[in-house]
């Protein structure tokens, strides 16, 4: 049987739209499920109180604070190292074997499973450097995991700045660093910020890297220093789902909702930054 081109066109079109819908469907189903089942669990007390009764009741305040604390310290390490490394690779490094090796290493770093980062962090920071299970050890582990995201997006942002900006700046007698500082970085900033936010949201949601390096099973108080353990949302969710019997579903799903909400808000920021950048970009 010969199918007319008009029909193949229709069939192909339907198939393609079906695939698109199938791709986004899980996202909506997950969010809907979490909102429906977790929504009733959200209350002021849930967000601001300590957990009680073996985490079956009360709130998740320490886990929220712990996650924010951990992510902030992570960024303290990841942003300067990531951005400066990218600036070096794009603006300074000449094209030689070492540079290519570093770039390949960064790409590979992005592909390492997160549990491996967790074990690495345990071995290096917790045990060898004697930091113990602490915010510092966890943040450093997460920072290493986030670095490839930040480096890659910063590199991309830097290379979208037209070469002519650099030439103009240099031709006016600006030094290399002045050129980067005044002609390149300001124009790459929105792209860099987007990358940072994406890295941040990834760090906020990871369980495996924090498992051995920072996460506390049950610790109903707020951290005092870098060397404290903290509860963090992803790990807390894991504990509620598998380690504690008879937890009410709205507590589990409520925790998931808070975590997803935090990550989505961060991603929304990235989208807004990018949109404003597009509007301003005129070259």
């Amino acid at each position: 049987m010969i199918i007319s081109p008009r029909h193949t066109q229709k069939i192909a079109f339907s198939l393609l739209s079906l695939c698109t819908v199938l791709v986004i469907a899980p996202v909506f189903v997950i969010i809907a499920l979490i909102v429906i089942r977790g929504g009733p669990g959200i209350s002021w007390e849930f967000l601001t109180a300590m957990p009680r009764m073996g985490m079956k009741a009360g709130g998740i305040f320490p886990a929220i604070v712990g996650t924010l604390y951990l992510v902030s310290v992570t960024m303290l390490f990841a942003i300067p190292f990531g951005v400066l490394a990218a600036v070096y690779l794009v603006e300074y490094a000449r094209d030689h074997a070492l540079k290519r090796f570093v770039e390949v290493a960064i790409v590979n770093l992005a592909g390492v499973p997160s549990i491996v980062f967790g074990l690495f962090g345990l071995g290096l920071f917790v045990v060898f450097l004697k930091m113990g299970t602490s915010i510092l050890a966890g943040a450093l582990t997460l920072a290493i995991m986030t670095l490839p995201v930040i480096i890659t997006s910063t590199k991309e942002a830097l290379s979208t700045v037209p070469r002519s900006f650099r030439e103009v700046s240099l031709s006016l007698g600006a030094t290399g660093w002045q050129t980067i500082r005044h002609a390149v970085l300001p124009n790459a900033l929105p792209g860099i910020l987007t990358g940072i936010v994406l890295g941040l949201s990834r760090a906020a949601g990871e369980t495996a890297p924090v498992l051995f390096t920072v996460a506390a099973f049950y610790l109903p108080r707020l951290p005092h220093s870098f060397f404290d353990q903290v509860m963090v949302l992803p790990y807390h969710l894991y504990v509620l789902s598998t380690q504690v019997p008879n937890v009410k579903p709205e507590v589990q799903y409520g925790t998931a909702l808070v975590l997803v909400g935090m990550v989505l808000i961060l991603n929304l920021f990235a989208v807004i930054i990018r949109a404003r950048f597009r509007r301003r970009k005129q070259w």
Partner: protein
Amino acid sequence: MKIKVEDLHVYYGSIHALKGISMEIRRNEILGAIGPANSGKTSFLRTLNRLNDLELHVRMEGQVLMDGEDIQKINVSLLRKRIGMVFALPLPLPLSIFDNVAYGPRMHGIHKKKELADIVEKSLKASYLWEEVKDRLSSSAFKLSGGQQQRLCIARTLAVEPEVILFDEPCSGLDPISTAKVEEAMLELKEKYTLVLVTNNTKQAARVSDRVAFFLMGELVEVDGTSKIFTNPRDNRTGEYITGRFG
């Protein structure tokens, strides 16, 4: 004599872009550089302010002397402050009109508001743009027309007070009226600066240059007074190029 070029060779990897150029550029003259595409005239220009240094695998032989000093031995930022450049396309930075002109002086350590304002006004007047933009210095440079942008770029170059200004086909994207304004500015600038003008438009070279250099396939065929080049060139190829028989 402002600049003396001695047996200059430039290679990009295996490409021999300039083949033994020797010439002089005189103080307060407009030297036109003409020649077909890939003749080396832009490479020549970018060697003078060492913008060629940015290219990969670039190699240079011979010497370029400015006021008797080897440009390879001058600090590159200071060299580029003394030898300014106006590019083929108007390339404003994504800043306001004021900040575009003030960019260079700021990089050289001038931060006083009054001083910067004076420099900006003086530079914009010298490039014949002041009257058109004086009421909107804080608006984006991208809002200007192409011709205005190019005159803004000239003002930006003037603001760092160079001694030599290199023009790399500055009118290639401009309409005739804007071109006339840029040319008018160049003739005025000659009083204070030494100008090198690379152009694909031989008529433009004839209109504004004092002397003209003809480049062909990386060689300098000849350099002579403008009227001599256009009426009675020494080399056949120069005459053929000018009358449009090739190139």
